[in-house]
């Protein structure tokens, strides 16, 4: 028999604290769709995705309804297109992106990830073609997401690829100048990209994965914030150790929901269940913000002194609670701080509490990195590459995932607003201090060697 308190507290989490499953992502292996004929490749990709994902969205919604927990996003992640389309030209890869966009629309998923390349140690022909295709592919499609892994702890940083990504980001922004450079919101540059991220824009299905897999991204910043506020109302003198325990327990509950629903979707589709990604993922809605948790913990805003320590505590507690709740944890698993997608974080930028340097600092203790950061439109390719290289260095040296999703907003300057629409949100443009002028360092290119602690064998 359930107790009244168990039932009421669960209902509160769903109704008033935005408890939901942020994404159920169906990974689909497309490696055997490869071939030299672009028409054949596109045909095989369409057939494969339709055969596996035809009922996917309907099924997720039905299961969400059964448990009274919304499955907010249903998405697809596919094998890296640089491998599947290795034999194709950039123009043909743009066509492949359009095919992915069409099939995503047909099966009603809002994003499809995997227009991706892994180039941490060097670029092959397919990788070069794919990166060349990214700006056109992202501006000609709505739902396709791209990611490029340019660094790992084992391989170091491929600065040639970093330079190329600076150019690519800039060109993607230019091609969507009429929409504040929205193509860049679908492009991540990674260090140590995991093979099983369910969250966009970084989701792709790793080369080591099976034919199909279900990965789940949980949510719950609103639930964590309310739990902290309730506890502090009951005991205003609560110390950080006790708050960490509280967040841990809350993360446990949130993760159990994701695990339950993910397993049921996998079972119904007769696909193996992959991982739960234990990330606090915000949306641009009030009450569903990671930034607000900082305020609940007692900071004036995210960005003020104490922010890095608070995020370290939060991230650690989320992982510990989640790891106990799920049998398989993967993906990014940490707190996200996507500036434009989190209303509170974007306000902290507007009010001057959060600058680019502080954002970079806090990425050393959380997942992702400089995520959804709107930069002035005149930020040069070289400066973009240098910012990417800095972020990659944090990931490589700390043996963790970092990424950048930078949007140099065409025609706009610091303090102006950029609007990306929907889940991508909007943000005040953050200034890049000391970013002007030449940067011969980054222009040298080449490989930054792997750190000594990568030699672990």
């Amino acid at each position: 028999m359930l107790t009244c308190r168990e039932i009421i507290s669960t209902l509160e989490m769903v109704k008033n604290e935005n408890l939901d499953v942020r994404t159920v992502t169906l990974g689909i292996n497309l490696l055997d769709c490869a071939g030299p004929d672009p028409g054949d490749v596109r045909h095989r990709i369409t057939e494969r995705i339709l055969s596996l994902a035809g009922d996917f969205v309907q099924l997720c919604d039905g299961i969400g309804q059964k448990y009274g927990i919304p499955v907010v996003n249903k998405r697809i992640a596919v094998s890296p297109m640089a491998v599947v389309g290795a034999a194709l030209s950039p123009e043909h890869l743009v066509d492949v992106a359009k095919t992915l966009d069409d099939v995503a629309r047909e099966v009603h998923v809002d994003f499809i990830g995997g227009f991706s390349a892994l180039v941490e140690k060097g670029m092959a022909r397919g990788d070069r073609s794919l990166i060349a295709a990214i700006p056109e592919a992202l501006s000609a499609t709505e739902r396709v997401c791209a990611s490029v892994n340019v660094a790992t702890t084992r391989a170091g940083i491929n600065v040639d690829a970093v330079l190329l990504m600076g150019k690519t980001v800039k060109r993607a922004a230019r091609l969507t100048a009429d929409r504040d450079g929205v193509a860049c919101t679908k492009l991540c540059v990674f260090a140590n990209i995991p093979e099983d991220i369910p969250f966009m824009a970084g989701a792709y299905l790793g080369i080591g994965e099976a034919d199909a897999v279900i990965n789940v991204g949980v949510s719950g910043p609103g639930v964590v914030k309310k739990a902290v506020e309730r506890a502090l109302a009951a005991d205003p003198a609560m110390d950080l150790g006790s708050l960490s325990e509280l967040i841990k327990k809350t993360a446990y509950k949130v993760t159990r929901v994701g695990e339950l629903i993910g397993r049921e979707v996998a079972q119904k589709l007769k696909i193996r269940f992959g991982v739960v990604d234990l990330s606090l993922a915000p949306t641009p809605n009030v009450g569903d913000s990671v930034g607000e948790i900082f305020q609940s913990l007692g900071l004036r805003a995210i960005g003020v002194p104490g922010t890095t320590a608070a995020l370290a505590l939060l991230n650690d507690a989320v992982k510990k609670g989640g790891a106990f709740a799920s049998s398989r944890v993967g993906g990014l698993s940490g707190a996200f701080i996507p500036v434009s997608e989190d209303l509170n974080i974007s306000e902290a930028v507007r009010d001057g509490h959060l600058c680019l340097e502080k954002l970079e600092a806090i990425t050393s203790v959380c997942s992702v990195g400089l995520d959804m950061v709107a930069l002035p439109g005149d930020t040069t390719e070289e400066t973009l590459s240098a910012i990417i290289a800095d972020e990659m260095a944090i990931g490589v040296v700390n043996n963790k995932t970092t990424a950048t999703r930078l949007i140099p907003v065409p025609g706009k300057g610091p303090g102006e607003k950029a609007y990306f629409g929907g889940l991508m949100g909007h943000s005040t443009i953050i200034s890049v201090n000391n970013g002007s002028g030449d940067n011969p360092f980054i222009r040298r290119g080449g490989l930054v060697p792997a750190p000594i602690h990568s030699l672990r064998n």
Partner: protein
Amino acid sequence: MNKAILSILGRDRPGIVASVSRALTDLNCNIENVSQTMLQREFAGIFIVSTPREMTADDLHREMDSSLSPLGLHVYTKPCEGGEDDCVAQGAEPFVITTKGPDRKGLVAGISEVIARHGVNITNLQAVFKGGADPGDNIMIYEVDVPAAVDQQILANELRAKAESLHMEISIQHRNIFEAINRI
């Protein structure tokens, strides 16, 4: 061996279960199941007991009543038919239906009528009506078993329509979600 079921009602205070069980022991009855609950200040207990072969349910009632009525406790007794779980539908799925809304007459009647019409069995019901218009003060929680043959979508739609007509919020969720969140 015969079985009987007794229900005991009375104003709650320490010692009720002790008095009932002492009286049963003195009659050479064996307690198989007990469930007790309190609503506001009132005690209610249900006892399933095995009785000596020669004892009828009427005998048991007479003896228990004479022991317990001086203590202000009311006793009801009936023979208990054997067999367990014979009304549980095969392949039923457990759901929890929760409502909140301003208090008025007919809330339990309205919701339980829909539940009954679909052949859904209520396995546990907790309801608190403190009165007034605050929805949080007036809550019903039904744990139900929905047989596999029942269309969950139609049941849910009818329950939602009924709740709306009674100005209540309603949630219908599979029980597993509560287990997953609250229990290890």
